[in-house]
């Protein structure tokens, strides 16, 4: 059974360290797929994104999503990290990495976790504009809800 590692934190993380940790001390991993989600400046409009989360539920829900991924694909490791608080453009927001013997389950699991995390993990983004305006909440994209359909 793959080891699941979930972290919800305001601090930044280092993708290299996390990828290395998945492979450390073992030689049965054929591929590691990772997704790094970054803060966009939306064409220069944004000074920062502020991420609010539901403490407790965020960890539990992402863990549930990871457990579902582990039950669907043959994985050797699965890591999911999500930051909260204020994040500047270009900064790291989320990281998911799936390790497996072959590439297909690693790709499928990483994309599955990201799809569910987007629409099911209790996080909300508030925009801080470069013009000083604070308070527009990012709206959920229909596309993200639709992305879940193919995993049924």
């Amino acid at each position: 059974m793959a080891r699941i590692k979930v972290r919800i934190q305001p601090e930044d993380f280092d993708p290299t360290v996390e990828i290395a940790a998945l492979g450390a001390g073992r030689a049965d991993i054929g591929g590691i797929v990772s997704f790094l989600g970054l803060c966009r400046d939306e064409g220069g409009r944004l000074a920062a994104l502020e991420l609010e989360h539901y403490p407790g539920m965020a960890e539990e829900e992402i863990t549930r999503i990871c457990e579902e991924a582990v039950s669907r694909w043959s994985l050797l490791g699965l890591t999911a990290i999500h930051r909260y608080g204020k994040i500047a453009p270009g900064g790291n927001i989320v990281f998911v990495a799936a390790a497996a013997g072959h590439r297909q389950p690693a790709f499928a699991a990483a994309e599955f976790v990201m799809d569910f995390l987007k629409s099911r993990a209790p996080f909300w983004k508030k925009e801080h504009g470069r013009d000083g305006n604070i308070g527009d909440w990012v709206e959920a994209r229909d596309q993200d809800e639709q992305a879940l359909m193919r995993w049924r």
Partner: protein
Amino acid sequence: MKVSYFAWIRERIGRPEEEIAFPASVVTVADALAHLQGLGEEYAYAFEKPGIIRAALDRKHVKPETPIAGAGEIAFFPPMTGG
């Protein structure tokens, strides 16, 4: 019962959480939301579009028809935008 609010629902109501004693007529999550709508202007504003509001009971996603009996905490929030 502990009731929590997040994002713009929290902002509109003006507090992150509170204790609310729901009357016996409140059976489901949808009933709880309808009860909150009647608690004042700020609640009516926060819940003006009940169709888009999501809810969790004891930190698990639930549907409007889910009974709230036995739960220690109910949370209301807009569609999530993490990731």
